[in-house]
């Protein structure tokens, strides 16, 4: 699993990456009440808005950590947004992106680096 400074995580399986937000981010947001996931087929560039996650008093953009095409979105979140709080780095994933350039993943932080980054916040 790799991480961004914007608190997205990404896990690569073959040429498809699953994207979500980290446990830290989910905790900071508070109770998640709504997730707007991207349409399947959408092309995203690294850094583009990929999804929106909302708590009662905050709305945050989730950025695409990599460039590619959205091949799946977590439809279950529309009925059970609380999954993002319960399992942020598991069932609370947002979207799956087919990688355009697998080397982009290498530039992201590993868990140790992310933990170290969190310690600076």
């Amino acid at each position, binding site marked *: 699993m790799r991480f961004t400074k914007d608190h997205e995580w990404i896990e690569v399986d073959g040429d498809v990456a699953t994207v979500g937000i980290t446990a830290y981010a989910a905790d900071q947001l508070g109770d998640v009440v709504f997730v707007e996931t991207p349409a399947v087929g959408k092309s995203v560039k690294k850094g583009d808005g990929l999804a929106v996650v*909302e*708590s*009662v*008093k*905050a*709305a945050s953009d989730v950025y695409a950590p990599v460039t590619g095409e959205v091949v799946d979105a977590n439809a279950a979140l529309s009925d059970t947004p609380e999954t993002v709080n319960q399992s942020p780095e598991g069932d609370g994933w947002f979207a799956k992106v087919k990688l355009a350039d697998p080397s982009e993943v290498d530039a992201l932080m590993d868990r140790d680096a992310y933990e170290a980054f969190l310690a600076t916040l």
Partner: protein
Amino acid sequence: MRYLPLTPDDRARMLGVIGAASVDALFADVPASARLAAPVDLPAHLGELEVERALSAMARKNRVAGEGPFFCGAGAYRHHVPASVDHIIQRSEFLTSYTPYQPEIAQGTLQYLYEFQTQVAALTGMEVANASMYDGSTAAAEAVMMAHRVTRRPRAVLSGGLHPHYAEAIATLAHVAGVTVVRQDAAVDAEADVVSAIDGETACVVVQTPNVFGTATDVTAIAEAAHAAGALLIVVTTEAVSLGLLKSPGEMGADIVAAEGASIGNGLNFGGPYVGLFATREKFIRQAPGRLTGETLDADGRRGFVLTLSTREQHIRREKATSNICTNSGLCALAFTIHLSLLGETGLRRLAALNHAKVRRLASALGEVRGVQVLTRRFFNEIAVRLPAPATEVVETLAARDIIAGVPFSRLAPAAGLDDVLLLAATETTADGDIEALTAALKGVLA
């Protein structure tokens, strides 16, 4: 001064606590060049009696609608409002409270807004409604912006029966949002013409029923055509009472209803404040503008209400908000909801039937005036007639005889080439004698 409780002694003691030499010391951050040394050049303070005298003198220069024959409509309709409505909205707890940001001590406001939302949804036949907009015209403009967000398409088609002020309010916002507005030519009975203008780029069509000429239209086929092309149907209604008699926009397939609610609970007020009704389908609610009240539970499990889905709004989403609206029409919405609770379904249907009966009487009386042609065939409480002379001149002449004969269409759209068209409304407040006075005077003027 009667509104200022501090005494000179209070002020001196407070400055002592603050540790400031003078009040002016508290204004030290204001650049010296911008500080006014003396009051501006306006009159000094007045007592209640003097203010009342001055403002009453202005009020007396206006011809009050209720003081004689009166037939103006065109988006603002004169109805009788029960005395209890105005009494309740002047209760301190409603009049002098703010937007219900602290739900534990604002359940009064939140519950009536929830009731309001439910009433508006029922009346319009839609799934959900918001807690009000400024007025019908701004609701319509916001509806077009919302259709643009939902469909991501850049074009809006407005019918020729849409109130010209509404069309202009839409055009103002559309211009800066990059939405192209296609306005059809003014037409008494041609709402369905919008269908021919729908294309693959069309975000929405906007039709009005009853339209500005009073024509009521079944928009079902328009809805089907719009949906087939992936566009939304926005239905505008400027006379909320009509919904007591006519099929609701929701029944006919509307995606968004933008209506003026002032007819229920609110006075003419020279055009404002009014109350915009905004209703839509549940699936679009996160794209809707304005405040929403929702049901929930408190810490003890008791039912209560809160403002909800606030992440759409400016105070959270800032530049990504669905609208910049903040303050809306709370107290006018309260007046609406009280009046509608008093009417109930029974009263509203009777009221609507009375309005319709009254304008039928007006239409048939005008039909007998030589040279006057009634243009509107299916109406609720308003009709358009063609006069054998410019409508503005006729209206001015009749006004000099203390008859307010209606609104010349050219007042709304001078360039439409309909200078001889006059819009007249009749409501439960119109006396039969008023209609007789109008037709008699009209016969004289047109003879």
